[in-house]
């Protein structure tokens, strides 16, 4: 086994030093009935490295991917450009194979990268502080609800129906085992009707959760909600799925969010069939000590030099155990390094270009839609819903597009079980070229 450094004579010498005759003697404290016979497990044969590459290459070749197919898919996962530098940096063993930086003196690389990450995420979302990541957006949304309950000492959670159905489902699931109400507000449209949301707020409400841009790509004014939350003394939680938006449109922080959570997958992380992605968690300064997850902070060393450490750990499970703000331990450290590398390569200008191109591609497509396909109305960032005459028309189009190496969208009911099967959730990024849009429009002919 190429991963095991011992020779048999090493093992023998070590056993002698320990004073036992055989390795199995070291397992004498496990009752004999539980010892399993060597080689008896129903696993595959041991594979050489070459065989492993062959096996996985064959499996990978069964999947269509974004190097051979055009993607108009969103819904929480986006095909944005990933610079080669990002992958190189996170492939370096010093980042890749490091543990959580509990020993700061020999972890300043990870820690400074986390600090830079937190700063950039706070700036991009317009929030005061960011933690050092959550698993992904759905669980981050659930944790935001829990945090709002801690902050407000109230328990009712109001969720807009235009939040990504997966974020809603996970949040509802997390809350279902705890005391307190959870209310989802039906929107009745492919957008966010804030009047309905505001109407659901009451005095027991801990927070209202909206998505911005919402699940359907809609962008709208959060000011009325901010006012309503102030009036009800509840927190305004803003979820987001494609953070690239905030290089173009006003940030959740500028619009008054108390907590903003979402996905950082757009920041240099491949789609990867859904993970590992990057959950983001940001909030106002005053709520900092109620945040879940790890946080990196600035300090000085014994020689007076600037340095970084994990901090506020008294919130965390390894110290506070059952009273911790969350049970989260391993989070998405390496993805933070990917995101900060990505953002450093992009800067304001690059991020803005990503957002402009993403939005412009959608606009270019929507503006030229034929009469038999309708797009949802109102301001959209890079995602919208197309409606077809019926599901047959839509599915004809999807099949034709797939044939032409183009994934034209996600059948809405695939994510939102309640949706009619004639709608299509579509997303564009800077990876969509003008020709792809032309092809898309041409293909729509079959949906007539």
């Amino acid at each position: 086994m190429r991963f095991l450094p011992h020779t048999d004579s090493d093992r023998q010498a070590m056993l002698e030093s320990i004073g036992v005759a055989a390795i199995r003697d070291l397992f004498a404290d496990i009752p004999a009935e539980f010892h399993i016979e060597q080689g008896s497990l129903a696993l595959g044969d041991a594979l050489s490295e070459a065989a492993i590459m062959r096996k996985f290459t064959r499996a990978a070749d069964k999947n269509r991917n974004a190097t051979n197919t055009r993607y108009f898919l969103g819904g929480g996962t986006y095909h944005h450009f990933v610079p080669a530098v990002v992958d190189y940096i996170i492939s370096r063993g010093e980042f890749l194979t490091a543990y959580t930086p509990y020993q700061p003196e020999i972890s300043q690389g990870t820690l400074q990268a986390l600090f830079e990450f937190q700063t950039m995420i706070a700036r991009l979302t317009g929030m005061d502080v960011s933690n050092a990541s959550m698993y992904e957006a759905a669980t981050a949304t659930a944790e935001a609800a829990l945090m709002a309950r801690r902050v407000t000492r109230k328990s009712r959670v109001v969720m807009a129906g235009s939040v990504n159905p997966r974020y809603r489902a996970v949040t509802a699931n997390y809350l279902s085992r705890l005391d307190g109400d959870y209310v989802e507000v039906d929107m009745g449209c492919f957008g966010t009707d804030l009047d309905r949301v505001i109407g659901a707020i009451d005095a027991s409400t801990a927070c209202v959760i909206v998505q911005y841009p919402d699940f359907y790509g809609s962008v709208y004014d959060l000011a009325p909600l901010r006012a309503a939350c102030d009036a009800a003394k509840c927190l305004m939680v803003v979820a987001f799925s494609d953070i690239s938006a905030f290089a173009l449109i006003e940030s959740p922080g500028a619009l008054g969010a108390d907590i903003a959570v979402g996905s950082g997958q757009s920041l240099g992380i491949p789609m990867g069939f859904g993970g590992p992605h990057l959950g983001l968690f940001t909030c106002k300064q005053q709520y900092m000590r109620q945040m879940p997850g790890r946080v990196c902070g600035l300090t000085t060393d014994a020689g007076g030099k600037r340095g970084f450490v994990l901090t506020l750990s008294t919130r965390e499970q390894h110290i506070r155990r059952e009273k911790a703000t969350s049970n989260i331990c391993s989070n998405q450290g390496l993805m933070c390094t990917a995101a900060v590398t990505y953002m450093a390569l992009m800067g304001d200008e690059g991020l803005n270009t990503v957002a402009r191109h993403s939005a412009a591609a959608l606009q270019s497509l929507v503006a030229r839609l034929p009469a038999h396909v309708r797009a949802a109305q109102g301001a959209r960032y890079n995602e919208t819903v197309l409606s077809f005459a019926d599901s047959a028309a839509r599915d004809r189009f999807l099949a034709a597009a797939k044939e032409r190496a183009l994934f034209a969208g996600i059948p809405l009911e695939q994510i939102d079980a309640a949706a009619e099967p004639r709608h299509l959730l579509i997303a564009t990024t800077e990876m969509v070229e003008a020709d792809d849009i032309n092809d898309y429009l041409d293909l729509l002919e079959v949906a007539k």
Partner: protein
Amino acid sequence: HEEPVLFEHAHEAPESINLPGVDGDISPELSAFARKTPASIPGLSEPEAVRHFVRLSQWNHGIETGFYPLGSCTMKYNPRVNEQVVRLPGLAHIHPDQPEETTQGVLELMYELQGWLGEISGLPYVTLQPAAGAHGELVGLMMIRAALDARGQQHRRKVLVPDSAHGTNPASATLCGMHTVELKSGADGRIDLEELKRHLDDETAALMMTNPNTAGAFESDIKEICRLVHEAGALVYGDGANLNALVGVARPGDMGIDCLHINVHKTFSTPHGGGGPGGGPVAVNEALAPYLPVPRIEKHGDTYSLVHSCETSVGPVLGAPGQIGVLLRASAYIAAFGRQHLHRIAEDAVLNANYVLNRLKGRYHVPFDGLCKHECLLTDEWQEKHGVKTIDIAKRLIDLGFHPMTVYFPLIVHGAMLIEPTETESRETLDAFCDAMIDIADACEAGDTAMLHDAPLKPFRRRLDETQAARKPVLVWPK
């Protein structure tokens, strides 16, 4: 050389990266929402960005640069071929919602991994979804709770947790709407059967246990423990953080554990990445299988699919099918050992831990006698007499070229030092580490302790002031 924080870079951003796409107009409706002030993300040229992050990387210790004997963290070598595997375009650049007939390859691999983890754990029904160990704990407890509810036992909400447990155990119970009762460990650091019996009652939902426990000792009473818990109408949750001691040698499911999470970033070598991403699949027995979360990966005929709805399921626990890239690496690790060699993981891991224990036991206090499994527990009791504490020993190890062991955990002994060498360390390295530990013990006995208190002196930074960081938190660079 010092590397500035990105925000300190003196110059303005150069021309940005050249990006593809449609350089057209955005809609007038969207323009109305334009961001008013830029985010102030500093942009670097590619040469500068690379140099910045390469230099930062050089201030890190990683498993590729040196020994990492962190107890209960299983810092083993992370195979490089696994990094190639996950970067195959057909695995990296695929969307979870693209047509299922275009993702059969990845679904097949995940389905196979479910089967392997079921086989390894002795608990045949597996969800790959949980994003990390703690997440797996939550999901496992959800399933236990659902099973009890299905039996009409909604009153069972008490979770017994030994005082040696990871902090995630009680935290996960809380998150699952349950409450915990701490079991005091016996004199040997193991679960005390009498203590257990005292707390088992008809409100008990589960015992959460780690086996081997966090003192590195196997809970030899495991069969009796499980019997007692089951007899009381509760279930046994296994924390799989220490599975590296058992993999291929014995199976938690055979011992009576009902539900086990598996930290693939420990046992199956997926890289820790400076704090994740991890992966915490949960394996359960048949009784708990109906409650597995959705989506589930199923095979019908020759077709694999993600099944999103199931009435008995505890529901969705993540916005995705799982941390696929992490799981792929785990699958590749298991494939490399295969059925022929898998047991050698545990064998060499346990051999290494006992070797270290044996070399150090005369020089450091060993709180619990006997064989250890994949990790061994020492304390600073003998060094404290010389004014040297666990923290000093840990920091001195840094100057001697090693990452410290896990310190002050488990909480059941004073000044704990928990050492886990894993199967991928050579005898040379173990000897060098033991020599360093013995040097430190020598220094204590010789009264040569100043360098221990001042340590570390060699790395980029000396001891950092954690109190200052927590009192006046500065979490972002000021604008």
